[in-house]
């Protein structure tokens, strides 16, 4: 059973489509990245999954439950780290977490034990009894993750977990997320617009644009979609002249050749690397470098939003 199954999800605000006919499936044990510019509908989708807002139309199942009708069953096993995270500033970190534990009906003794554990896990054990009002943004974010882990969820939703955090803190948080999947087998849904981070840790990702899921899959799958059946090869030769370019254009399967200094980009519909190598040698030049280009998430993403 998939952890999340959404079909034809729609959410309109006064006729404005925030989420428009969105289908989403998240499998057990994966880290799924939801990408998109601000206002694309990422947070709205997440709120629907948690039953914090009702969809205008469509079907949602989270671990087999409908969040609009059985919110408690969903929330019992789902942890949520909101984008604008807030704590009771007058209470200490420990008191804030204890409150969450009591709301989850965890008994007193067990609650205290678990709070100490998760504070240790996120590295806040030493400041556990300090008022949250004195915490930095990064500390609050880590406390938020501790708050999510307290109820030992099967499914965790993190909305922009690294926004506004310095690079070092962001790396810590990302490592923690990967550990949650590896050590505790949690399924994680992550929304972000920080692409290199998503690329680093996500198993699959979906690109959301104007409320629609325009593409989803692994990085390789997304890249293949962008390529539209074509592959890009980068060639570096010691000498670039018209003769060489002409020879490259003549190779069967090549649909485009362009160059920039000594870097030649060859676009082809098949594997043409051996023939490129031969063409370069035959043209009397030395082959310095020849590689297939792999798309970064950033390139894929920009292709979607420019094209």
């Amino acid at each position, binding site marked *: 059973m998939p952890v999340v199954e959404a079909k034809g999800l729609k959410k309109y605000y006064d006729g404005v489509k925030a989420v428009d006919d969105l289908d989403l499936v998240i499998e057990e044990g994966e880290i799924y990245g939801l990408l998109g510019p601000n206002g694309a509908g990422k947070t709205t989708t997440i709120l629907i999954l948690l039953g914090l807002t009702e969809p205008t139309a469509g079907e949602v199942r989270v671990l087999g439950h409908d969040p609009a009708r059985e919110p408690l069953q969903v*929330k019992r096993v789902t942890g949520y780290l909101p984008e604008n995270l807030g704590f009771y500033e007058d209470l200490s970190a420990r008191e804030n977490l204890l409150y969450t534990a009591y709301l989850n009906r965890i008994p007193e003794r067990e609650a205290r034990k678990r709070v100490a554990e998760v504070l240790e896990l996120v590295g806040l054990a030493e400041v556990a009894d300090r008022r949250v009002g004195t915490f930095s943004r990064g500390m609050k974010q880590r406390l938020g993750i501790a708050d999510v882990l307290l109820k030992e969820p099967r499914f965790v939703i993190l909305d922009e977990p690294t926004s506004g955090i310095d690079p070092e803190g962001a790396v810590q948080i990302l490592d923690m997320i990967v550990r949650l999947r590896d050590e505790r087998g949690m399924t994680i849904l992550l929304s972000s617009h920080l692409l290199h981070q998503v690329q680093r840790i996500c198993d699959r990702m979906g690109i959301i644009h104007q409320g629609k899921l325009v593409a989803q899959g692994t990085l390789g799958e997304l890249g293949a979609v962008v390529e539209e059946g074509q592959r890009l090869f980068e060639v570096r030769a010691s000498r670039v002249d018209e003769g060489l370019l002409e020879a490259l254009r003549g190779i069967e399967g090549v649909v485009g050749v362009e160059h920039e200094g000594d870097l030649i980009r060859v676009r082809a519909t098949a594997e043409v690397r051996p023939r490129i190598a031969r063409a370069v040698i035959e043209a009397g030049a030395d082959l310095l470098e020849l590689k297939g280009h792999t798309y970064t998430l950033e390139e894929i993403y920009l292709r979607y939003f420019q094209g």
Partner: protein
Amino acid sequence: MSAVFWKELADHLGSKRFVIFFFLILIVGGASTYLAAQALSGTQQGAEFIYLRLFTVSGGGLPSFLGFLAFFGPLIGVVLGFDAINSEFNRGTVSRVLAQPIYRDWWINGKFLAGITALAIAVASIILIIVGLGLYILGFPPDGAEISRTAMFFVISVVYLGFWLSLGILFSIVFRQTATSALASIAVWLFFTLFLYMLAGLIADQVAPIKPGVGADVFAKHESIRDLILRFSPVALYEEATTAILIPSYRGLGIAALLQEATIPTSPLPLGQSLLIVWPQLVGLVALTSVCFAISYVIFMRREIRST
């Protein structure tokens, strides 16, 4: 729900605003009772319901404790409620709390119960202090009837403050800004404590003007119109209800009682009979509180929980 209740109660009892208001009532209530006790001292034991008169008699220019509670009590109720929900939105705690497995109404109910418990603690301690002060000044203990009527007075007061608390919570749901909901609460408070009295008089004057030489029926109509309008005010309901409880000989409201004063016996009624007189007022207060709750539920249950 108990988790919400205990946290909110701890927040209330530790909050500066609660402490400030508690001492404000304590000081003014204590002063008005002291002056009332001065006016009453010299009364001998056995004089009727002397302890109850501590609450209703005014002396030295200060209003009675009852009048004071009717006027300023709402402010305390509202102050405990006006930022109950919207401050959670503003702090961003709402998403975190409602992502936990609790029903939304538990959250409102827990907050309301915590608020009303804090209010009950405050009112109970102030009443006990006043009775203690009376004991010291008057020099004899209250009897059973006085104790039961004081307890009844306590219950009605808590219900009354509970209405204002629920109004504050309602505004904290309706308005996103705490300042707006505070102002709206104060506006309603002023409307019911000051303007509605003027308005009721004004409308009654228009509908049934009292001129020299008009008959008793016009008088009666004038009064009943005024009463009808005032019955919409929780302040008036509270004043009527507590008057009947604290003044045992009080038999009725409005013009009928006034006109027949000469023919009605002035002996005190038993508590049960007094309660019977004010039953409609009590039900009215509870109904107003329920209406606030119903509106709160309807708005909050379907609201989107997005911290901004």
